[in-house]
């Protein structure tokens, strides 16, 4: 089940094939935005987890079980799910590459979901301003569930709990990245075989 691929050796030619740099801003958060093709959207809309609340437009989930559906969409979209926090330096440093991925694959079956593990007391004071100031285009959600031992393995048994961490999947196929990525190309090299269906 778990396919752990270190990002470095995965440089495949396909990474070069898909490219674009559209930069149309997304609109509302907390709902799948109208960026992905229709077939994907129907599945997402039907199963998109409803947040417990939203703080300045950022959907907030209290329990991991509430965000679990994000890891189990069964359609032909590739989901790139990253765990981060505003206080985590290497996380913040790699965020632009996720944003680049979102922009580059706009209109295609690729969705980046950035799950913030910020302190709940800082959702309003730190997370929301951070997302607003950077005009982040990827889906940003906040998860308040601090009972980590109960759910880290549900994301990936490869995950030690260190952040950043990234889980990429399409249908049954998945990859786990247990370190920070250093470029958009590195991230794309992991995601692309799933996106294109070409496993190297």
């Amino acid at each position, binding site marked *: 089940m778990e396919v752990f691929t270190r990002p470095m050796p995965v440089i495949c030619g396909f990474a070069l094939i898909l490219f674009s740099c559209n930069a149309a801003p997304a609109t509302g958060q907390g709902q799948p935005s109208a960026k992905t093709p229709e077939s994907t959207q129907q599945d997402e809309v039907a199963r998109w987890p409803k947040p417990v609340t939203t703080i300045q437009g950022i959907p907030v989930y209290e329990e991991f079980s509430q965000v679990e559906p994000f890891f189990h969409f069964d359609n032909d979209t590739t989901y790139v799910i990253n765990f981060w926090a505003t206080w985590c330096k290497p996380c913040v440093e790699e965020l632009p590459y996720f944003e680049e991925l979102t922009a580059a694959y706009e209109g295609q079956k690729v969705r980046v979901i950035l799950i913030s593990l910020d302190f709940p007391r800082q959702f309003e004071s730190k997370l929301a301003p951070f997302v607003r100031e950077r005009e982040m285009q990827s889906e940003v959600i906040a998860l308040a569930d601090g009972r980590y*031992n109960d759910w880290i393995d549900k994301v990936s048994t490869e995950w030690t709990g260190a*952040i950043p961490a990234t889980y990429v999947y399409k249908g049954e196929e998945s990859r786990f990245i247990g370190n920070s990525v250093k470029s958009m190309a590195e991230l794309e090299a992991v995601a692309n075989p799933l996106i294109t269906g070409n496993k190297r």
Partner: protein
Amino acid sequence: MKHLNLILTLALALASFACNGGANTEKQAKAATESEAPAKTVALKPDGVGVGDKAPEFKLKNVDGKEYSFQDIRDASGDAPRGYILIFTCNTCPYAQASEQRIINLHNKYAAMGYPVVAIQPNDPAVQPGDSFDAMQKRARQMEYPFLYLFDEGQEVYPKYGATRTPEVYLVDKSLTVRYHGAIDDNVRDEDGVKEKFLENAIQAIDKGEDPKPATTKAVGCSIKTA
């Protein structure tokens, strides 16, 4: 593994795209408030140790300037310990900070029972200046750390353990076998929300000659910073 897709020549057909100016990269490149230097993180270490393995030896400098290995460490009564609470932690990680008082309390309670805390700071100060030896000494003084706060200078020890984050605990018994590995408790972020004290339960278990349950746990933490 799985093979769902071979309908994907289609996907490749979608491949050409128009470029209309990626204008937001500049905003996104804004530095984080806490960032002082570029940080690289550590990949999973397949060669680390787990429960049942021998704890790797070390000889590291404490904030008092003296070097310590397992053989040099004493419990609160000055005797050879019954076990060691090894905690990879640091000054700068918000989760380490959230755990600081818990670590002090653990030492105060368990060093007297023969289980001193041995804190090891694994981050490279070149990447994380707030974790320099000077900064460690300052913090230890300020908070009157009752435990050893060792500096993994050159970052040679944490990879042998396979530690990946701060805080991360290895409970080692007196035969130097790892008996528990993971989190201090089930709520690293907020002590008031703790329901299960994994580490304390593990100490009590090995003290009774039993195996800890659970013997391995996980928690979110800051990845160890290395150049």
